[in-house]
C-alpha cells in the first residue's frame, strides 16, 4: 500500500506541470493559434522564476516565495509568448516556424543570461516549499496520504487552474468567443468579435500557464535549473492532442502520462518491478511508447479546432 501512496504522490509531480501547460496550449489552439513554443515558454518561465527564487531566497522562504515566483513565471511567460503572438497574428507568419524559433531561443537565452550573471549556467535554489503534511486534511485515512502528504502547493494550484479553465472556456462569454475564433473566425468577425484581440488573449494565456508550468516542473523534482525542461513542452502538446483539446480529457491524459513517467523514474522503489532486472533505458522509453500506442488508437476521429494554424485574414471567405 505504501507503494501506491508513493506512486500517486510522485505522479502529481509529473502530471501537474503537463496539465497546466497543456491547458495553456488548449487556450491558444482553441483560439486558432498553433503554439508549439510551449517548450520554450516553459524554459523561460522556469528560468526567470528559479532565478528570482535564487536571488531572493536569502530574504524570503516558504510558500510566499513560491507564490511570488509563480507570478514571475506567469508574467515572463506572457511576455515571451507575445513574440509568438505578434508573429502569428500581426505578421501572419507560419506558426510552426515562429514556435520553433522561440524553442531554440529560450535555452540559449537562459544559458547566456545565467552565465552572464553568475558565471555558470546552472541555477540552484534551496527547496523550502515541501509540504510534509497538510494540517487536518493530511490526517484523513486514505485520501489524506494520497493527496495531502509529501505535496507541494503547486499541485493544488494546478487543480484550481483546471477548474477555472474549464469554467472560463465553457461558461463565460469570453470562452465562447475564443472557441468561435478557433473554429470559424470569419463568422466570429461578422458578429463583431475582434478576432485579433481574442487570439492575442489565447496566446497570452498559454504563455502564462506555460511559464507557470515550467516552474511547477522544476520545483518538486530537483534543486537546480539547467536551462532545459527535458522536452516537457512537447509532451504537453501530446497531452493536448491526446486530450482532444478538452479540459477534463486533458486531465486524464496528463495523469496517464504522469503515471507512466513515474513508473519509469521510480521503478527501483517498487519491489515487484525492480526485481525484474530490466535496464533503466527501457523504462525511460515506456511513457513515449505508451503515448504512441494510445495515439495510434485514438487519433482516427481527432478533430483539431478547424481554424487552428491558419493566419486570420479578413479578406478570406
Amino acid at each position, binding site marked *: 500500500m505504501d507503494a501506491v501512496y508513493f506512486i500517486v504522490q510522485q505522479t502529481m509531480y509529473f502530471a501537474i506541470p503537463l496539465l497546466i501547460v497543456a491547458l495553456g496550449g488548449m487556450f491558444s489552439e482553441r483560439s486558432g493559434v498553433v503554439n508549439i513554443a510551449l517548450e520554450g515558454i516553459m524554459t523561460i518561465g522556469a528560468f526567470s522564476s528559479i532565478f528570482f527564487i535564487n536571488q531572493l531566497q536569502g530574504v524570503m522562504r516558504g510558500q510566499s516565495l513560491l507564490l511570488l515566483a509563480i507570478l514571475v513565471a506567469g508574467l515572463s511567460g506572457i511576455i515571451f509568448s507575445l513574440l509568438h503572438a505578434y508573429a502569428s497574428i500581426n505578421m501572419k*507568419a507560419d506558426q510552426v516556424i515562429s514556435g*520553433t524559433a522561440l524553442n531554440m*531561443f529560450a535555452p540559449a537565452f537562459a544559458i547566456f543570461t545565467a552565465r552572464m550573471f553568475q558565471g555558470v549556467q546552472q541555477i540552484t535554489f534551496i527547496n523550502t516549499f515541501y509540504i510534509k503534511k497538510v494540517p487536518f486534511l493530511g490526517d484523513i485515512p486514505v485520501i489524506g496520504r494520497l493527496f495531502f502528504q509529501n505535496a507541494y502547493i503547486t499541485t493544488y494550484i494546478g487543480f484550481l487552474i483546471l477548474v477555472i479553465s474549464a469554467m472560463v472556456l465553457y461558461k463565460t462569454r469570453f470562452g465562447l468567443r475564443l472557441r468561435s475564433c478557433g473554429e470559424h473566425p470569419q463568422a466570429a468577425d461578422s458578429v463583431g468579435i475582434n478576432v485579433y484581440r481574442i487570439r492575442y488573449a489565447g496566446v497570452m494565456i498559454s504563455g502564462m500557464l506555460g511559464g507557470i508550468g515550467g516552474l511547477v516542473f522544476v520545483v518538486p523534482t530537483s534543486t537546480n535549473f539547467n536551462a532545459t525542461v527535458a522536452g516537457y513542452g512537447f*509532451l504537453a502538446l501530446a497531452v493536448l492532442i491526446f486530450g482532444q483539446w478538452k479540459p477534463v480529457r486533458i486531465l486524464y491524459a496528463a495523469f496517464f502520462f504522469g503515471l507512466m513517467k513515474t513508473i519509469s523514474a521510480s521503478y527501483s522503489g517498487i519491489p515487484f518491478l525492480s526485481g525484474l532486472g530490466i535496464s533503466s533505458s527501457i523504462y525511460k522509453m515506456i511513457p*513515449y511508447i505508451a503515448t504512441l500506442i494510445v495515439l495510434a488508437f485514438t487519433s482516427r476521429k481527432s478533430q483539431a479546432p478547424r481554424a487552428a494554424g491558419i493566419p486570420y485574414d479578413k479578406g478570406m471567405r
Partner: protein
Amino acid sequence: MKSLITKVFHNDKTHVGLLSSLFAIFIGLLFGFIVLLFSNPSQALGGFGSILLGAVTRGSRGIGNVLYFATPIMLTGLSVGFAFKTGLFNIGASGQFIFGAYAAVYVGLVFPNLGSIHWLVALLAAFLAGAFWAIIPGLLKAYANVNEVISSIMMNYIGMYLVNFLVATNPRIFDPNKNQSFTVPKNAQIPNMGLDKLFPRSSINGGFIIAIIFVIVIYIILNKTTFGFELRAVGLNRDASKYAGINEKRNIVLSMAIAGALAGVSGGIVYLAASGRHIEVVDVLAAEGFAGISVALLGLSNPIGILFSALFIAYITVGGFYLQLYDFVPEIIDIIIAVIIYFSAFSLIIQTILKKFRRKVKGGTT
C-alpha cells in the same frame, strides 16, 4: 547606389524568398551584435568580427572545418526540407539521425571486415535504419491520422533511449571507460577523397562530397521526376491529390522514409568519421536534428537553398567557437540562429510588402 537598390529590389527576377532570408540573416546578426554590445561593450566588436570572419582567418583549415560542420546539418536540413516540401514537419530528424548512427557504428564495429567497401555498407545501413525510423510516424499519419509532429517527437525520445541501451549493452561497441562507442576501424571510416589535401589539418572528410551528391539527387527527385511532383502535390493539397488519383497514403510513407534515410545517412557520416566523434550514452537528443530544422527553414526547403544555409550556419558556428577568446558565451550563436529563424517566418509578410513596393514603382500590375 539608388539604381543598384532599384535593380535588386524591383527586379522581378530577384527571388522574393531569397530576399526575405537575407533580411532575416541581417536582422539576426544585428541582434547578436546588440546582445554582444550589451553584455560586454569593450569586446563586442572583436567578438562580432570573430563570428563574421573567424572561419576565414584560419585559412584553409578554417574553411575545411566549416565544410566538415556543414555536412551533417546539410543532410538533416535536406531531411526536414524534403519533408516540408511534401507537407510534413519532420521534427523527428534527431531520432532518425541517432538510429542511423547506431546502425553505421554497428556495421563498423560488429560486422567482420568487409575490406575497402566496409564504410559504404555501414552508410547503407545508416540509410536504411533512418528510413525505418521515419516510416513509423509516416504509417501512423497515413493510416491512423496521428499528427506526425507528436509521433516524431515520441520517436526522438524512443530512439535516444533505445540507442543508449543498445550501445551500452554491447561490449563490442561500448567503451565503459569513456561511456561512449569505440572508434570504428579504418576500413569503416569515410575516406578523405582528396579533401584532406585541399584543407590540411582540418577535420574534413569525403562526407562533404556525399552530402553534395545527395543535394543534387534530392533536387532532381523533387523537380525533375513525376514521383517528386506527386510528392509535392500531396504536400500542397492532400485531398486534391487523392482526387487526381495519387495514392496519398503511400506517398506520405515514402516521403517520411526518404526524409528519414537522409537524416540516418547524416548520423552515419558523423560517427564513421576519423575525426573522433563517438556515440555517447547520455540522455541528450542529437542537436544535428534540430539544426536541420533551422537549415531547412532558412533555405526555404529548397535543396540549393539548404546547401547554402547549411554552409552559412556552419560558418558562423565555427566563428562562434573562437568567441571564447573574447570572453563570450558561445550560446550567442544559438541566439543569433534563433532570431534569424524567427524573422524568416516573417517572409510571407515581407514578400507581400515587397510585391506592393514593386507594383508602386512600376505603376501597374506586377
